[in-house]
C-alpha cells in the first residue's frame, strides 16, 4: 500500500504530507511489516464475518434438540448426525435434490449455450438494432417478480408448462441469460478479431469459427456464466414456489420452505436441511471459482 516506512497506512487514511522516500530497501508492490499486519488483520476479521453465519449453521445442525440454538454451549457434549439422518429418511429430500439439479443444470446448459451465441453475435457483428437489443437485455434485469408472476403463470399454463421442469428452466433462463449474454459479450470483446479472421482464411464456416476457435478461448467467461446461471436457478424461491405444485417436483428451495412451515419449531432439522442444500452448490462454486476474477470483469474493464 505505502512505500513510506514512517506511515504505512490504509488508503482511507492518507499520510499527511510526509513522504520519506525510503526506496531501495523494499521492492515495489511490497509493503512494510505494519501495513502487512494491518492487511492480515482486516482480512482475517472479514473472513471470520464471512464464515461465521455458515459455520454457525453447521454447528447448530449437529445439536439433537430443537431448542439447542438457544443454548449452543450444550451442543458440544452431545453432537450427533441424527438430524441429517432424519431429514434424509423422512422427507422427500432426494426428490427435491433431483428436481433442483435437473432445473439448475438445465438452466446452466441452455443458458450458457444461448448466452454464448448471443454474446458472440453482439460482440462481433454490429447488426442493425444491436444497441436496442443490448438495452432490452438490461431492461429485463429490472423486471420485478411481482409484475411478471401472474402473466407468466397464465402463459405457462397455456403452454402446459406449469409444474414441469422445462417451464421452470425457461423462466430461469429468461432471468439468467441477459446478464450472462452481457458477460460473454465482454469476454468475447477481449479475444482478438484476428483469430476469427484466421479461422475464416483457413476455410472455417462462421459457426465453425465460433465453436472450434472462440469457445475454447472463452472458457473462463463460460465458467462464470455457468456459475451465475446455476446459482440463479438453484437459489430462486419466488417462481419455484408459484410454478411447482407437485410435492415431488419441489426444488430444494421450495422444499425447505414447506418443511419450515411444517416444522417451524424444529430448528435443528431446518439447520441440517440447509447444510445439505448448501453442499452441492458450494462444491460447484469452488469448481469454477478460479475463473471468476478474470471472467467477471473482462468486459467491464474494456468499457
Amino acid at each position, binding site marked *: 500500500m505505502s512505500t513510506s516506512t514512517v506511515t504505512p497506512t490504509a*488508503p482511507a487514511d492518507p499520510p499527511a504530507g510526509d513522504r520519506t522516500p525510503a526506496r531501495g530497501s523494499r521492492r515495489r508492490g511490497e509493503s512494510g511489516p505494519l501495513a502487512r499486519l494491518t492487511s492480515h488483520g482486516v482480512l482475517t476479521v*472479514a473472513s471470520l464475518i464471512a464464515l461465521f453465519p455458515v459455520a454457525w*449453521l453447521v454447528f447448530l445442525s449437529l445439536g439433537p434438540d430443537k431448542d439447542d440454538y438457544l443454548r449452543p454451549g450444550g451442543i458440544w457434549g452431545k453432537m450427533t448426525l441424527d438430524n441429517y439422518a432424519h431429514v434424509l429418511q423422512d422427507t422427500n429430500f432426494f426428490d427435491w435434490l433431483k428436481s433442483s439439479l435437473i432445473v439448475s443444470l438445465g438452466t446452466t446448459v441452455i443458458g450458457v449455450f444461448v448466452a454464448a451465441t448471443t454474446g458472440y453475435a453482439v460482440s462481433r457483428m454490429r447488426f442493425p438494432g444491436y444497441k436496442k437489443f443490448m438495452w432490452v437485455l438490461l431492461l429485463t434485469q429490472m423486471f*420485478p417478480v411481482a*409484475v411478471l*408472476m401472474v402473466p407468466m403463470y397464465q402463459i405457462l399454463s397455456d403452454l402446459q408448462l406449469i409444474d414441469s421442469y422445462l417451464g421452470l428452466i425457461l423462466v430461469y433462463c*429468461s432471468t439468467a441469460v441477459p446478464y450472462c449474454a452481457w458477460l460473454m459479450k465482454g469476454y468475447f470483446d477481449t479475444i482478438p478479431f484476428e483469430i476469427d479472421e484466421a479461422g475464416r482464411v483457413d476455410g472455417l464456416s462462421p459457426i465453425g469459427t465460433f465453436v472450434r476457435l472462440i469457445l475454447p478461448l472463452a472458457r473462463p467467461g463460460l465458467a462464470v456464466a455457468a456459475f451465475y446461471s446455476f446459482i440463479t436457478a438453484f437459489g430462486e424461491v419466488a417462481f419455484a414456489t408459484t410454478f411447482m405444485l407437485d410435492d415431488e417436483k419441489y426444488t430444494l428451495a421450495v422444499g425447505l420452505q414447506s418443511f419450515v412451515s411444517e416444522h417451524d419449531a424444529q430448528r435443528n432439522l431446518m*439447520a441440517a436441511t440447509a447444510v445439505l442444500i448448501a453442499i452441492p452448490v458450494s462444491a460447484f462454486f469452488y469448481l469454477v471459482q478460479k475463473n471468476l476474477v478474470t471472467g467477471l470483469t473482462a468486459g467491464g474493464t*474494456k468499457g
Partner: protein
Amino acid sequence: MTVAIDRATGKRRGDRAPRPGPVSRLKRGYQKYWYAYAMIAPVALVLGVIVLYPLAYGFYLTLTDADSLNSARTIGVNEIEATWKFIGIDNYADILWGETAYDRFWSKFIWTIVWTAACVALHYGIGLGLALLLNQKLRGRTFYRLVLILPWAVPTFVTVFGWRFMLADAGIINSGLDFLGMPTPAWLEDTFWQRFAAIMVNTWCGVPFMMISLLGGLQSIDASLYEAAEMDGASAWQRFRHVTLPGLRSVSSTVVLLGVIWTFNQFAVIFLLFGNTAPEAQILVTWAYQLGFGQQPREFAESAAYGMLLLAILVVFTSFYRRWLNRNDQQLAI
C-alpha cells in the same frame, strides 16, 4: 465497423451494386446479418414469450380490477368465467395519491430508496476495500479470497436461515451483546432494527460480487501507471485517487448500476428474513408480492401496478445514469 462485420461473417462486399429502397435494404440486411440474427434468435424468442409478452399482459392487468375472486378459475369441475373489468388508471391513482397512499406507497418508497442507497454504498465500499487488500502481494491471498466469496457461494435462502437463528431473541448475537453488557435489540420485531438487520444481511450477501468484480478491475490496471506515479512522488492516497479510481471507472459504473437494479429488486433477503411479519420493513418488491400472492384475496392488478411503478422508477434512473455517464465521457459496458 463494416470491416469488422465482413471479417467475421466473411460476407463478400461490393459484388452487387447497392440499390436503395426498403425492400432491397431489408433483403440486403438479411443477407448480411442473417448469421447474427440467427444467433440471437433463441434469446429474442424466449425473452419475447416469457418476458415481453407477460410484461404487456401485466400492464394490461394493471388497468383492470383483477383479483383472485374475479379471475377465471376452476373449482372442482366448475369453470368460473373471469368477471374483472377495465378501470383505466384507477389503480395507479389509488396507489400514488389515494387515501392512505403515504402508508401504502410513499413510506415504502422512501425506505426502498434508503435501502438501495445504503446497501449499494456498503457493498461498493467494503468490496473495494477488500479488493484493494486482496490485490497486494500477500501470503495466504488465495485462502482469504476463497473464504471471502463464501457468502456468495452458499445460496441466499440458506444463509438467511443462518442469520435468522443468529438474530433470534436469544440467538448468538444477542447473547454476545448481552455478554458484553450492551443492549440487546429485538432484531426481528422492532421496525428500526428489522431494517438495520435487513441491510446488514444484504450487505453480507452482496459484498463478494462487488469484491470479485473490482478485484478483476484492479488487476487490469497497468502496473506501469503506478510506477510512473511513484516516480513523480505521488503519495499512497494520491495514487489511489488518481490512478486506481480512474482505472476502475468503467467496472465501477457497470457494477454500481447492476447493484442498484438488483438491490432495488432484492426479493429473497427481506422475504426470507421476515416473511409476513414485518409490514414496515417491506420494500416495494416484497410488498407487491405480498399483495399479489401473500394474502387473501390476492390483488393481482394492484400488485402488477406496483411492479410497473418499480420498473418505471428503474428505467428513469437508468436513463439519467447513462446520461450522467455520457456527460462524464464514460460509456457503460452494456
